[in-house]
């Protein structure tokens, strides 16, 4: 299953609130 990763925190927080969903944030420093 492909995960659609969001990139904008403010947009993600707003979407989570609207849809009453939890938000997972993956903080990484791994080379791309």
């Amino acid at each position, binding site marked *: 299953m492909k995960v659609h*990763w*969001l*990139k904008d925190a403010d947009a993600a927080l707003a979407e989570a609130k609207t849809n009453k969903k939890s938000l997972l944030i993956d903080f*990484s*420093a791994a080379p791309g």
Partner: protein
Amino acid sequence: MPLEAHIKEHPAYFHRFDVVWTPTVVILDPNGKERHRIDGYLPVEEFRAQLELGLAKVAFMSKDFADAERRYAALVDHFPNTKTAAEALYWKGVSRYKLKNDHTVLSELPEMFRQKYPDSIWALKTAAWEH
């Protein structure tokens, strides 16, 4: 919902969410309040259990104790051999107690921990509820 925050692309997010080490995964409730944090690498099973723990905590902290109990129970069932399972078993009991307001639920936990997770810190926490 998943949000990716790479240090090169969004360094400000690290400051905003008080992240000083990677990898770190933060789980927020729908109102943006942090409910769980996973620091560092974990084996896959433990990591999956931690993700489920985070979602169960979201339910618990929103006082949806029925959903919390269901999520903690599912975690214990699906990942019984993880370190996380002991914590989930503890909070499953607490969720049940909150739901039913029945003290006997708590008094059953010490024996349960003796059988399943006797060496966990969560076993020590249930000792106070011994008969």
